[in-house]
């Protein structure tokens, strides 16, 4: 018997694990199951599915590696973790791709069956990495996962090819033992998921239990660990991904506004799931339209908005590029419209499945003419729910397009989310104009400058709108030069006034100090964790994370001015940085990253420390 069998599990506060394998190895499923079980145990967690753009790249090759990283903790955590404690590598290619991402000392569970000569050469190894010293300094746990799985499934009536597919459950069983997790939640899931095929249920259950038993009986691991529950507020929690949260937020907004939701979309990674999620809501009356292209998708959404529905289009950067002209039409006709951009690496097709924040300036200025829109960004998977509601609120209140920026990390990543009650969500008042007396299509609300929203079908309010320049109030086509300037400024002023209607920027930390770390969108977790670490190290560092990018919070200039140095960290080459410099004449320091990967806490912390050392000019 191993020591581990007799000793109580060792407590750990936080653990980071990374599953890596071929696209067909079921790594996303394995990671998702580990996450679901950890959620039930009350851990805080953050996940990072990291997969290729190809559905099934050639087996055993580097481009085909699909990974899933997860941090789970007894504390509140904000990222999927910098340094994996355990890497599960299902084949040689997975090891090759993952090794640069894991620290020395990391436990690496390798499926030795994935290191045959053919697999090694497909992964680009000329020497055997398990034998040539490549893994010196790591704790290598070699397990013939495939062989072991086939051995325990000898009785299974499934063909060998099918039996082999259960090896991810064998690996999951090992991990469940290592971290003292119960098997029951995954067993239930297997029974439900594969109930149409009892042989697959049996094979997966057998492999899961066998993996657990193998880890228990073998002396592979020096100890077993446990990660106690995190101090979450009591209540109902849900494991939610950004795309699911965003889709739910759009529907919640339509419930709170009391008008129908219409989504026009064309499938594009990583936003397609928003269309899929809302397409399920037929019983709730949600209308989804899978359009012939990105342009039709946004135009249909504008048509729906003209008809009195909440018109939404969801896409990624390349799609936004195609929608630019139509967004301009919605700006000039002053119709509400929500454009969701789940950002990915660009330009052009770029990195479809990898995250980036490089569409901020596209959101701000990526259209012809003076064409201001409101811009809002989500900071975490669960926050996508609330930013979706906020985007709809702004669009309907100000009769304007709103661009909602999410990103690939938020879209697919997940976190525990305190489930809100519908009644506690903000109400979104909608007032359609029906009064005939005194009506003109471009009369404005004196406070918001919004024009009236009229549903076609309202007697006596027949009117025309369009993309030609038009006269204020009457909306009649007008090429008058002074009117054009007046309307340009009115549209700009309308967006600027939203600043009176959004929360002030509130730094985390102190109101003033040596350094203010500024970010926006999906980097919140890494920036917040880096700020906590810097403050623990005694540094005078505070953090402000922007949800509203256009307009910016009214007090932001004062906030920036209260710090000796401002560091702007974003997953691009300095786009918010450019906006802040232009707007506030503040001499910022910028920190960017263009690797298709989220920030690690460590690199942000290093950037903070470096920025504090740079002498002020």
């Amino acid at each position, binding site marked *: 018997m191993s020591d581990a069998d007799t000793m109580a599990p060792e407590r750990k506060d936080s653990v980071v694990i990374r599953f890596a394998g071929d696209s067909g190895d079921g790594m996303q499923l394995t990671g998702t199951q580990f996450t679901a079980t950890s959620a039930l145990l009350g851990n805080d967690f953050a996940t990072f599915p990291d997969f290729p753009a190809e559905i099934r790249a050639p087996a055993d090759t580097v481009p085909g590696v699909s990974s899933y990283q997860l941090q789970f903790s007894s504390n509140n955590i904000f990222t999927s973790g910098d340094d994996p404690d355990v890497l599960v590598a299902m084949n040689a290619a997975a090891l090759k791709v993952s090794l640069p991402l894991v620290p020395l000392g990391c436990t690496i569970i390798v499926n030795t069956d994935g290191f045959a000569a053919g697999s090694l050469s497909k992964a680009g190894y000329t020497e055997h990495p398990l034998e040539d010293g490549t893994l010196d300094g790591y704790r290598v746990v070699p397990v013939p996962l495939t062989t072991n799985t086939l051995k325990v499934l000898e009785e299974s009536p499934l063909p060998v090819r099918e039996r082999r597919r259960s090896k991810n459950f064998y690996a999951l069983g090992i991990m469940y033992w290592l971290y003292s997790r119960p098997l029951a939640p995954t067993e239930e899931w297997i029974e439900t998921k594969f109930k149409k095929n009892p042989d697959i249920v049996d094979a997966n259950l057998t492999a899961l239990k066998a993996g657990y038993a193998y880890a228990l009986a073998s002396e592979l691991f020096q100890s077993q660990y446990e990660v106690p529950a995190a101090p979450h507020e009591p209540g109902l929690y849900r494991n939610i991904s950004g795309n699911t949260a965003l889709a739910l937020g759009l529907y919640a907004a339509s419930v709170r506004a009391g008008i129908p939701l*219409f989504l026009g979309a064309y499938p594009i990674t990583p936003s397609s799931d928003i269309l899929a999620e809302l397409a399920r809501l037929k019983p709730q009356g949600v209308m989804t339209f899978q359009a012939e292209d990105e342009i*039709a*998708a946004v*135009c249909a959404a504008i048509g729906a908005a003209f008809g009195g529905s909440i018109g939404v289009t969801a896409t990624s950067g390349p799609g936004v590029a195609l929608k630019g002209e139509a967004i301009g039409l919605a700006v000039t006709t002053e119709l509400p419209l929500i454009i969701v951009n789940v950002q990915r690496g660009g330009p052009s097709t770029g990195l479809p499945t990898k995250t980036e924040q490089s569409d901020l300036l596209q959101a701000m200025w990526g259209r012809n003419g003076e064409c201001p829109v409101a811009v809002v960004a989500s900071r975490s998977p669960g926050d996508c729910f609330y930013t979706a509601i906020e985007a709809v609120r702004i669009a309907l209140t100000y009769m304007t397009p709103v661009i909602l920026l999410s990103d690939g990390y938020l879209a697919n990543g997940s976190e525990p989310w305190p489930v809100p009650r*519908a009644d506690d969500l903000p109400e979104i008042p909608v007032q359609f104009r029906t009064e005939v007396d005194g009506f003109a299509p471009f009369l404005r609300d004196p406070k918001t400058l919004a024009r009236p929203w009229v549903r076609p*079908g309202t007697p006596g309010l027949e009117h*025309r709108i369009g993309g030609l320049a038009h006269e204020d109030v009457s909306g009649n086509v007008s090429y008058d030069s002074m009117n054009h300037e007046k309307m340009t400024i009115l549209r700009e002023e309308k967006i600027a006034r939203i600043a009176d209607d959004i929360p002030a920027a509130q730094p985390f930390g102190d109101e003033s100090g040596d350094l203010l770390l500024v970010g926006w969108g999906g980097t919140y977790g890494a920036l917040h964790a880096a700020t906590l670490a810097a403050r623990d190290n005694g540094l005078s560092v505070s953090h402000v994370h922007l949800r509203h990018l256009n307009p910016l919070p009214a007090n932001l200039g004062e906030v920036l001015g209260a710090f000796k140095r401002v560091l702007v960290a974003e997953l691009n080459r300095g786009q918010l940085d450019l906006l802040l410099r232009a707007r506030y004449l503040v001499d910022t320091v910028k920190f960017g990253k263009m690797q298709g990967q989220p920030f690690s806490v460590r690199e942000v912390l290093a950037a903070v420390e470096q920025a504090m050392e740079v002498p002020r000019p």
Partner: protein
Amino acid sequence: MSTESTATAPTYTKKDFSSDQTVRWCPGCGDYAILSTVQKTFAGLGIPREKFVIISGIGCSSRFPYYMNTYGFHSIHGRAPAFATGLKVTRPDLSVWVVTGDGDALSIGGNHILHSMRRNIDIKVLLFNNRIYGLTKGQYSPTSEVGKKTKTSPYGSVDRPIEPISIAIAAEATFVARSADVYGAHLSEVLRRAAQHRGSVFVEILQNCNIFNDGTFDSVTNRGTREDNKVDLEHGKPLVFGQDRDRGIRLDGLTPEVVRIGEHGAELGDLLHHDESTPDPSLAYLLSKLGPPDFPTPMGIFRAIEAETYDAAVHRQISEARETSADKDLDDLLREGSVWEIGEEKTN
């Protein structure tokens, strides 16, 4: 809901459909006649005025909504069918019309027109075909004939033109017709039928651009010669044409031929009899290919068949889903998926 006429529908005159905006087409443009016919026809449909929405793209024809006292939306180049789709799906109670041109619909907007028709969304597309780009001052269009000399084709266009009706039938629009700007009564009748049709309507209106392409459809619009150059499609009737109504179209297998009635054994009964309601689009497609120099140009309704519309199907799915699914409100949806409760007393 429906746009059908009701007993209480108000009665209108043409003037009720005229907006207060000055019409700014060139004097002599065929669009004036179309505008007048549309206004007159709409007044008599029995549909409340506020239920009409006219959506256009870009081009001379697309200024149309500004001149109609209905709801209107002058959108962007080529995309009017997409705006109309979003509007009609969300507001099936409205009578949604698209006014477009040959460049707008068939060049920059080719994708949208194709998909709106194949979906059978209940929108009525009126395509004003003048075989030229007018608003940009006279470049050849996708319907311009080969060899057409314009500013951008000084040696003659080498583009093979699109036949709009063929495209519509290939996409299986459920109502396809052709008329012309100067065919007042004929156009009015086509529009009336279009308004009544449930599904994707495609009406090609041959339209004269007297500035950049004058007389392009003269053969079928000139009162003196047109009877010899066009053949009227009338449901159930033989395809007879000619000033003296002495010629007809007969099918020899799948090949159409022009015959003189009463000569060489060609009897009236042998002629092709028009059937607009045949679900199979093949015959309608064959008719769409007829035209000069060997055949008269068919005018009228090529195809009018009934099929479930896209918008109706969307709302049918919604009501069926409501009947067969559990009644989940927002709170239920928020609590779906992987959820767990954390109690007041936490145990590890």
